[in-house]
């Protein structure tokens, strides 16, 4: 193999992609970041699919799904918000100027439902705190008034 051949294979090599995570868990509403290492030249596109078959509106998950990748190796961060509960795969596809698409490995994301609060606890606190402060204020005033009267 001569030098020219070597150069040609490097120059014409397919774009590559690896992901730095393969499994993530999140709570609904949480913002996540996955990191990918890519070599181009290519255009990279983020995608999200549901493994439970629910509909995914990509726009809700991320506003920034398309990036240009340079020839040399680069790290690209993808930021998205977990909008629906369930199991999802997040992956990146590279679209070279010519040739085949290259898909990166999927990152599995499990999104759990929101934590719900038992309303029961909130009400006692919401009543007790002002009540205690109110009593403290009033007794303070009363004690002062009575105390002063007896001294006068």
């Amino acid at each position, binding site marked *: 193999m001569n030098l020219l051949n070597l150069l040609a294979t490097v120059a014409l090599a397919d774009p590559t992609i690896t992901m730095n995570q393969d499994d993530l868990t999140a*709570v*609904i*509403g*949480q*913002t996540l970041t996955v990191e990918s290492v890519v070599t181009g030249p290519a255009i990279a596109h983020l995608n999200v699919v549901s493994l439970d078959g629910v509909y995914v509106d990509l726009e809700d998950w991320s506003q920034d799904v398309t990036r240009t990748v340079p020839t040399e190796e680069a790290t690209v961060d993808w930021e998205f*918000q977990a909008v629906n509960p369930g199991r999802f795969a997040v992956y990146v596809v590279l679209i070279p100027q010519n040739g085949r698409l290259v898909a990166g490995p999927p990152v599995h994301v499990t999104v759990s439902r*929101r*934590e*719900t*609060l038992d*309303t029961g*606890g*909130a*009400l006692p*606190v*919401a*009543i*007790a*705190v*002002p009540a205690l*402060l*109110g009593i*403290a*204020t009033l007794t*303070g*005033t009363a004690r*002062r008034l009575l105390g002063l009267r007896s001294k006068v």
Partner: protein
Amino acid sequence: MSRWTVVAEQESRDLWVGGRGPALVFGFSVLLSAMTYLAATNQAMNFLEQREAVNLIVQVGLAVGVLLTVVVSADAISGERERGTFEGLLLTPVSRRAIVVGKLAAASTIWLACLVVTLPYLWVLGRGVAGAVQAALLALTVGTLVATGLGGISLLISAVTNSNKTSLAWGLLLLLVLFAPTQLPALPKTGVGEVITRVNPIGSSLHYVSQILVSRRDWTHDLSYLASPIVIAVIVTGVLIAAGPRLVRLTAGPR
């Protein structure tokens, strides 16, 4: 024992024993109770995430706690001028600087009281998620920073005005100007909108807090947003200490 502590001690007494401190904090707790109740019932209907509820309490606590600090500091010097008690204080050998520091310290007790009152609400709304402790720490650090900066500005305003009404009006106007943009839902997240959020100590603090509490960012992620509250707190404290002797005079205005 340095004399600023004597000033701080008496001014705190005046605020809390027979003063308006207890009533202000009582009102504060009623407001937080209403917010907590609404947040909790809303959440039961699944509209509000638990972390959003905690965030809401931190934001309201911070904004109203700072408001009360501003109200108390606005009275500190102009109020004494108005009541004719300032000359008596100026006639003591206590340095002007010690007077300013003592008054600022006394005003900050109302912020600390608000902070303490906020804790049970954070606890009850944040149970189960690590958010409650985080929220309390954020309220303590970020809130204290904002309260120092804006309480200090209010004290400066009080030093350059002769009447309480003027001083209070300017203090409240300032808060309104700073607070209004944080309530605009459509403020863009980039460009001019971001700059407006970043320079505004209240806007940037609230942004920082909600990034951590709701979006679960790391505490270092948007740390640069704290630049504005830190810079303002440092500058205001510096100005108060450096210019204190020139500002603390019998009457404001030209000599």
